[in-house]
């Protein structure tokens, strides 16, 4: 674990240099423990694949004091029941109007529609991180056979609920948004509700399984 400074009010905690389940697991354990501690002066915590960003208010706590707290801090890997990672099933309609890039993915990978669905639905994915837009889960790790690159020219508008592929990840657009992932299906499940805590159905570290409908 390496602590690096980022801007006047940021600390990057580096847990590794690659996208890896174990590294991400350490990030998420650290983030959950830190969040539960409610340290005064911490404004926001952003866990991601291999790092955790902490933003602090420098009028409340300074960089050195915060680093001391973090370095002497025991990461608790046991969770209160309501905070334990959940396993969530997400129903998806694959292909056709719901998956405009299915044909490309099929050509690129040499797999049939049925094989793509079979492979995509047979992994239990981990929510490695959430972001770029609210509630967007970066799920991994995708089966290597479904590796595809992002679109060369991102779409200006991807419908809410779209399920996409990008490199060794799969993800879901909770909102209509511009985007460059290869879209293979769509879910009706509402992933983000700004009126109802915890707002995002999926939390960092949760497990996701897609169910074809």
């Amino acid at each position, binding site marked *: 674990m390496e602590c690096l400074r980022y801007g006047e009010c940021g600390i990057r905690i580096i847990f590794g240099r690659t996208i890896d389940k174990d590294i991400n697991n350490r990030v998420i354990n650290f983030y959950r423990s830190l*969040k539960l501690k409610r340290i005064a002066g911490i404004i926001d915590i952003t866990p991601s694949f291999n790092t955790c960003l902490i933003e602090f208010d420098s009028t409340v706590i300074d960089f050195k004091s915060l680093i001391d707290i973090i370095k002497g801090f025991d990461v608790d890997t046991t969770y209160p029941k309501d905070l334990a990672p959940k396993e969530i099933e997400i129903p998806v309609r694959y292909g056709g109007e719901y998956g405009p890039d299915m044909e490309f993915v099929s050509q690129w990978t040499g797999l049939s529609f049925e094989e793509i669905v079979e492979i995509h639905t047979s992994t239990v994915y981990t929510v490695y991180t959430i972001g770029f837009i609210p509630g967007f889960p970066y799920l991994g790790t995708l089966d290597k056979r479904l590796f595809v690159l992002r679109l060369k020219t991102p779409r200006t508008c991807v419908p809410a609920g779209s399920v996409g592929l990008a490199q060794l990840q799969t993800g879901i657009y909770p909102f209509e948004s511009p985007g460059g992932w290869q879209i293979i299906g769509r879910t009706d499940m509402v992933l983000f509700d*700004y009126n109802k805590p915890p707002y995002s159905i999926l939390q960092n570290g949760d497990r996701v399984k897609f169910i074809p409908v």
Partner: protein
Amino acid sequence: MIEIINPGLQSIIVDSGRYGFSDIGVPRSSALDIFSYKAVNFLTGNEDGSPVIESIGAMLSIKFHEEMVFAVTGAWVEGVLDETPFTSWRSIKAKKGSIMKIKKVNSGFRYYIGFSGKMGIECIMGSYTTNLECSFGGLDGRPLKKGDLIRFSNIIPVDDRFIIKDAIPSMDPPHTLRIIDGPEIEYFTDDAIEKFFGKKDLLRYTVSTKSNRIGIRLEGNPVEFKEGVEKSIISEGILPGTIQIPGDGMPVIVLNERTLGGYARIASVAKVDQDLLAHLKPKDGVILKRIDIEEAETLWILKQKSIKNLLKNK
């Protein structure tokens, strides 16, 4: 109650930001010029954190359906309240039935309008601010439009207040932004770093017309990556003011609408100069000036102290 007669180029409800949810991808979406935002609340007798309107462009026009005090901060504007001219950075009393109109924006880009009462805006995830991309917060998650009515409660009398001119930063181009080294600075050649950070105050970049409230794109010499380095990083948490270099080498300054980023970060705009980002408009010149983190930290703490002193209720 106020009525939007004309929303100008774009007007949205903002506040000090939606914090504590970056772990689920929710950005702060705060007012871009925080000093001006705090000042407009001070001028209208509101607590810090109250909702205000952030606008760009002239033509904004608002009708007052009851008597209240309002103020404009941020960009220097020429406005009229019925027939009487007014300008930015002081409180103005509006009578019931009065109409205010912004005729011209003289210096700066974004301006903030506050009112002496509690705005009837719903608090979503701890904030009044608008997340335009995902259509929540503010007024139904969208920019204000003609005919919108905004209700107020607790309208309070406010004495004449103003901000002294010396306390208001220049918003005229070229803009000098002090910057500190970013996490991926070693991805770039020495020559590129030398050119980017520079030694003299040379005009290096202009603001692209493709800029928006998510990011400011700069145009100029592309920043060169070292040979063989990856041009992107594994996406991770990103802070406002970060300067990213995408594959084409053209810098992008991240504003307040993203929590993760996947491009190499050469630098960050020092927090002391981040309010100025609200006033970078297309075609403006930008000068970048490298300072070290300790200096940036001290400047930021001093700035916050001086703002606190300036906006103290007497």
